[in-house]
C-alpha cells in the first residue's frame, strides 16, 4: 500500500489510452479533433489509486497530459504515477460522464459578443476574456457568476462519452481578474 505525501495524488494511467479508456462499460475517447489553437489538446484519463479530500480512491479524473510519459519524474512503477495535486488536475468524471471541476478549476460557458442586430450563427463571436460559470467546483465562484479572465485563458476540453461528443470550457481561478456576482 503506497501513501501519497507532499500534496500529491497517486494515479493509475494506462499510457496506451491516449485514444480512449473504458469506464463502467462505456468507452471514453479523448482529443479526437484538434483545432488550430490546440486548446483541445488531449487531457488524460487517470484512475485515482490514493486520493485526498478532493479526490477519492477509484475516481476517474481528467488531467493535463504533460505528467505522463515513460521517463516522467512523476512515474513510480508500472501504471502508477504520483502527480502534484494542483490545477493540472482538471475535473472528476462522474459515472454519468459529467465533469466536476477540482483544484481551482471551474467549468464555464463562453459569452457571445452582443450585436445591435441579429447575426447568423456562423458569424457570432464570443468574448475571449470572460465566461459564465456553470460549476464553481471548490472555489468561491458560483453558478451564474460572470467572470473576467486574462485573454484566451478559457481551455476547451473535448471528450467523447459513449457515442456523444461533449465539450466543456475550463477556467483556472488564478486566471480570473474580476467577477460580477449573480
Amino acid at each position, binding site marked *: 500500500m503506497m501513501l501519497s505525501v507532499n500534496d500529491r495524488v497517486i494515479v493509475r494511467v494506462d499510457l496506451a489510452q491516449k485514444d480512449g479508456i473504458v469506464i463502467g462499460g462505456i468507452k471514453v475517447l479523448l482529443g479526437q479533433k484538434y483545432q488550430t489553437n490546440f486548446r483541445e489538446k488531449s487531457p488524460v484519463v487517470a484512475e485515482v489509486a490514493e486520493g485526498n479530500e478532493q479526490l477519492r480512491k477509484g475516481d476517474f479524473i481528467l488531467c493535463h497530459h504533460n505528467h505522463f510519459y515513460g521517463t516522467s519524474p512523476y512515474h513510480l512503477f508500472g501504471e502508477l504515477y504520483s502527480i502534484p495535486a494542483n490545477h493540472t488536475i482538471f475535473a472528476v468524471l462522474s459515472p454519468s460522464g459529467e465533469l466536476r471541476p477540482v483544484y481551482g478549476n471551474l467549468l464555464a460557458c463562453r459569452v457571445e459578443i452582443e450585436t445591435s442586430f441579429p447575426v447568423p450563427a456562423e458569424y457570432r463571436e464570443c468574448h475571449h476574456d470572460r465566461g459564465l460559470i456553470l460549476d464553481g467546483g471548490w472555489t468561491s465562484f458560483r453558478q451564474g457568476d460572470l467572470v473576467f479572465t486574462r*485573454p484566451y485563458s478559457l481551455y476547451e476540453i473535448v471528450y467523447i462519452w459513449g457515442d456523444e461528443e461533449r465539450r466543456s470550457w475550463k477556467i483556472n481561478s488564478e486566471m480570473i*481578474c474580476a*467577477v460580477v456576482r449573480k
Partner: protein
Amino acid sequence: MIEEAVNKWVLVIRDDPETESGGLLLPDPEKTHSGTIQAIGDLVTSEGLKAAKGRKCLFHPTGGWDITYDGVTYAVVRDEEIIALP
C-alpha cells in the same frame, strides 16, 4: 458596473485622454495610464493600495489590458504595475 476584482488584479477606470492640443483636435489620442481605482483584488498585499479604492493612480504604460462591461471600460492591471497614488 464591475465592483469586485479578485486575486492580485486591480480595476482602474482610465482618465479621459487629451483630445485637443494647441487648438487642434487630435485624431487618435493615446490611452492614458492614470485613472481612478474601481476595485482591488482580495490577494493584494500592499497596505497603501488596499485602502485606495476611489483614489487616483498612475500605472505602468505597458501594463494590463482593457475590458468593457455595461459600456464602461476598465484597465486591468497587476498590483505591482501601479506605480504611484498621487
